């Protein structure tokens, strides 16, 4: 007598990681934490009405200083920390690490999961903000710029999660100290800043946006998109390298 064992197709590990990221890493509190800055984006859209410039001009200025410098990084930080740093801190990352899954799949899967969350939260919020501001031509540019910007940010925050245990704190330091403070003073840093590159993407694609919100020496439009893709790729490589050296301890350690 033989016993039949039911089998199914070998699961694709990358898809398993992405599904887990969406199901487990982004809990109800994280959704709230992500949606709050998104609500802020809508408020920035309203704020554009208080400015005297034309709607396109006004929204571009609000987007540059409010949406791309504040909403996108903060919401991405909430997501980026949730998909990696928070898991390591809470002591449940071993469920993933102690399997034969390649480390590259773990890093890329977490990043894809985070990017999907950004695509359904940050991106629509930024597009909607343009609409609220009375700049329908700015909807698509804002969506494209925030999509690539958030994706690059999440990769950076995943990398920070692989480097530092207090990933959220270091991520905040990256946004406010490195990007905002040093990035404003030093063009070299702004060249590799998702905030500045997102602005550059937006300006080139948005017909009403003034060129003055873009830093000198930063490529605009497609060039900025390539920069953001490069930033994401470099951050993911760093994350992959650091993950192999990460000390995975418990929540109490």
């Amino acid at each position, binding site marked *: 007598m033989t016993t039949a*064992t*039911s*089998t*199914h*197709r*070998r*699961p694709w*590990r990358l898809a*398993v*990681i992405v599904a*887990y990221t969406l*199901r*487990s890493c982004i*809990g109800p509190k994280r959704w709230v934490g992500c949606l709050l800055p998104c609500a802020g984006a809508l408020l920035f859209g309203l704020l554009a009405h208080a400015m005297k410039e034309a709607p396109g001009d006004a929204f571009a200025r609000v987007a540059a200083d409010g949406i791309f410098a504040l909403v996108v990084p903060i919401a991405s930080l909430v997501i980026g920390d949730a998909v990696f740093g928070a*898991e390591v801190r*809470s*002591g*449940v990352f*071993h*469920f*993933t*690490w*102690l*399997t*034969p*899954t*390649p*480390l590259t799949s773990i890093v890329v899967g977490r990043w894809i999961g985070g990017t999907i969350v950004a695509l359904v939260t940050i991106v629509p919020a930024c597009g909607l903000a343009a609409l609220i501001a009375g700049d329908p031509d700015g909807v698509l540019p804002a969506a494209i710029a925030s999509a690539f910007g958030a994706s690059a940010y999440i990769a950076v925050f995943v990398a920070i999660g692989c480097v530092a245990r207090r990933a959220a704190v270091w991520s905040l330091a990256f946004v406010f100290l490195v990007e905002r403070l040093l990035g404003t003073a030093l063009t070299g840093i702004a060249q590799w800043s998702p905030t500045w590159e997102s602005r550059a993407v937006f300006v080139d694609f948005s017909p009403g946006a003034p060129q003055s919100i873009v830093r000198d020496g930063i490529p605009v439009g497609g060039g900025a998109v390539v920069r953001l893709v490069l930033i994401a790729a470099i951050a993911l490589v760093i994350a992959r390298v650091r993950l*192999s*050296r990460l*000390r*995975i*301890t*418990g*929540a*109490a*350690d």
Partner: protein
Amino acid sequence: MTDTAPLDPAFAPNPTVEVANTSVWFGQKVALSELSCSFGPGVTGLLGPNGAGKTTLMRAITGLIPANQGTVRVEGRNPRTDRAVHTRMALVPEDEAVPAGLTARQLVRYVADLHGLTDRDAVERALDEVGMLDVAGRRVDGFSKGMRQRTKVAAALVADPNVLVLDEPLNGADPVQRAHLIDLFRRLGREGRTVIVSSHVLNEVERLADRIIVIVHGRLAAAGGQRAIRDAMNDRPRHVLIRADDRRRLASALIGLDSVAGIQFDTDSVVVATSRAAELAMSLPALARELSVRLREVRPLDDSLESLFRELVR
């Protein structure tokens, strides 16, 4: 004539897990210090007081943390760098933390999928093995500590590992679950798997393991069979602090006991030196009762063996 050199009890005859001169430190704190031992098929108990380095050793064995010095090999491979090792090894960590929002079935399925298992029934079998099938549809983050622990055991068993590392797996389990898990681990050991179980409770390890390795302050304190460990602990000279109503009367009676090597008076207590702690633990309550002296505190002063001693005198 054959060479009959005795085997060091810290080393298993057919090792699957080998730890050689391994040191691990976290900043200034040394968690493991030049530890050498090995584990083979069967159940090996890892015993030691809290903070002795058991969890660190288990994390080093599973590759979660690197050894700062020395080597760790699982079936000849480095668990830190060779991802393929994880097809053959599983860990049940002591931490209560579990992924949020997942049911027990989803968590075990997740681990099974990451192992690339194609057997649909593996998840149900693993859950059944630990008696969690009935509640497999409930969320793990709502479980009690014992249920979480059993779910983690199911997740560890789902890929049918040859090396199973269990860090305090009986924590939080009720007596029935405890007996069930002990039977399960013993069976896995009999099947020829390498099962490493840590605990700070001697009796628990004795029920589980034939071979015991004792770690104190990150160093190997003793290794061998249950009897050898008991003897080693009992033979170790210890100092026991006793606080009692009438310490002078108690001390004069204690000095007559064979198990007492010396007595020293402190401000409000007596410190008894003994090399036969178990015998002293047996005779002390009887002596106090006979003298109508009320014992207020009995505490070993050798911190390294405190928890072991407590277990012995219980």
